[in-house]
């Protein structure tokens, strides 16, 4: 028999069900630490998830590089230098320059600010909308039909005209109300959010349909759980994994869509670099200046990858069965 050696600190506690005989022939085991909130627990778990931590660090690095980087690398991303057009990497321009001689590193950082902000906000918007609609449709039978037919409608609407109509109707009022940049930001984020929540909604609904027939939902109803609490406590944590996947895919989608929007004139002003646009602009130069495609490509992929690992961590942290392993 191979008795595992235990240091005194982690001496396993033998608790097999408490004192059997009240009055205690055998003493009660000592109660351990007081119960902590479930979310604290999830957080604790999350912190010890290798993938999540790696993802988190990379993500943090990207955020820092993009938002603090410009203080260290203070070249103006809009500074045109016709003499230095299409340069390869050099000390003066570590990532080379573009067709107008602008520094790619500075543009990458500036672009990252926009792309990250748009990507994350739009993804969150789509996610919240999608999950909300999915859960409502799956959970409330009465809402199912109307919400799902609405989803069908949104899926069917041609994207481009829809976006064009949005610009038509909202660009000027938004610019007037929030200033040009914020206005456009709101417009873009809403445009992406409003046009990409449908898959999440349908996926979440499918899961909820199955979930709400589980017995613990019935049990929860029997103890008087309100619908709101039922959704928050019982349904939502159990559909977290498709939501997390949607989130990762959503952020990639949002970053790419943003660049597509600029072709409709819906995006940021053309002198605003974003990762998607840098990548798109660079495709023509793929053979001359491969670093121009590679850098924004890596930036986008790395962001998505890190968010993916963060999501994996969250998912694992929420699954009590995987926890502790």
């Amino acid at each position: 028999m191979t008795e595992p050696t235990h240091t005194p600190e982690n001496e396993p506690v033998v608790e097999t069900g408490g004192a059997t005989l009240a009055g205690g022939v055998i003493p009660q085991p000592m109660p351990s630490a007081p119960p902590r909130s479930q979310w604290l627990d999830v957080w604790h778990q999350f912190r010890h998830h290798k993938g999540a931590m790696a993802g988190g660090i990379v993500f943090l690095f990207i955020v820092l590089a993009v938002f603090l980087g410009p203080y260290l690398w203070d070249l103006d991303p809009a500074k045109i230098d016709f003499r230095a057009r299409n340069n390869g990497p050099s000390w003066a321009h570590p990532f080379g320059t573009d067709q107008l001689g602008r520094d790619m590193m500075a543009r990458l950082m500036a672009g990252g600010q926009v792309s990250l902000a748009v990507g994350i906000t739009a993804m969150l918007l789509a996610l919240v909308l999608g999950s909300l609609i999915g859960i409502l449709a799956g959970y409330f039978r009465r809402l199912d039909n109307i919400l799902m037919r609405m989803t069908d409608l949104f899926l069917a609407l041609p994207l481009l005209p829809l976006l064009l109509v949005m610009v038509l109707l909202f660009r000027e009022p938004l610019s007037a109300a929030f200033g040009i940049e914020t206005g456009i930001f709101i417009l873009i984020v809403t445009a992406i959010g409003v046009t990409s929540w449908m898959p999440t909604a349908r996926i979440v609904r499918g899961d909820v349909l199955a979930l709400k027939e589980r017995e613990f939902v019935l049990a929860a109803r029997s103890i008087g759980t309100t619908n709101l609490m039922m959704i928050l406590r019982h349904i939502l944590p159990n559909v977290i994994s498709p939501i997390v996947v949607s989130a990762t895919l959503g952020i990639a989608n949002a970053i790419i869509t943003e660049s597509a929007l600029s072709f409709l004139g819906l995006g940021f002003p053309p002198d605003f670099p974003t990762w998607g646009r840098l990548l798109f602009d660079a495709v023509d130069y793929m053979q001359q200046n491969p670093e121009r495609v590679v850098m924004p490509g890596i930036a986008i992929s790395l962001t998505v990858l890190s968010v993916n690992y963060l999501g994996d961590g969250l998912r694992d942290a929420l699954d009590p069965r995987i926890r502790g392993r």
Partner: protein
Amino acid sequence: MLTFTIRRLIIAVPTLLFIAVVIFGLLQLAPGDPMAQVPLTVPPEVKERMREALGLGEPIHVQFWKWIVQFFWIEPQVFIDNVFGTHLADGKLRVLSWQTRSPVMDIVVQRMPQTLWVVGMSYLVGILIALPIGIYSAYRQYSIFDQLGTFIAMIGFSVPTFFTGVLLIVIFSVNMDRDSFWWFPSIYDTTLQVTDWASFGQQIRQMAMPVTVLALYNAAQISRFMRASMLDNLNQDYVRTARAKGVGERAVVMVHVLRNSLIPVVTVIALGVPQVFGGAIITEQVFKVNGLGQLLIGAIEANDLPMVQTLTFIFAVLIVLFNLIADVLYGILDPRIRYD
């Protein structure tokens, strides 16, 4: 289930009509004009004449009604005529495209083969590689295979097809020798007829690159959902029961866990099928496949409203249909789901 299906089919009618109205309204509202592509050298009064010739002068509800009649009444007759050789629709005005002045449905039919060959095939290939990868990644969570799969899937999803497509072209069409086996055409030939093995080989060659690009993208998405959903079910008690019966790991995973994990995957796949018919705009453009995606985007750019309206509506029908199929499948996959 039957009543559910029937009920849903009945509801589908007003839904689709509503969608048609909304699409029509949206297209009317959207800025743009069918004359956008006419050069600036053509004077405005001529453009005005051309607009009138397209029927643009008529009130909106008349235009909509005309479309409804043409699409729901005349086009089916044309279809019947084609199948049975009758002459019901002779002389009746079909839905005509403003760009080409020809019946929209004819062009749609013309675009089907390449769309199905390329987009459909890539979807199929995507699913076929996504499912095993998703399943195995979940089964061996955090193994090398899983990490690699995650990595590739994320790259596949986050790097847009306008990049991967061009990359493939540069590698296989530009840098390969024209005579080598690894050379692939960068331009899809829609006139190619598959009649013998040689032309079949040619067809495969010209499909190879667009299908690869799209399949990678599709597979990335589906495999992630598959993996997540498998992970949710791998630790359930019934899996233990299956193991206690002595069922092999393969069957445990492929039968017991898989069936329980299919709902999100079915949803994603069902969501994707109409997209197949919607075409893949960017990939089609990169490889000049000229399928339905190119047709739609071209029509939107040219503000060819009858074309956009018809295509989008067909698309809507497919969406409604496949969502219904998905719902029916839910009921079959998980008997606990009730719809009454």
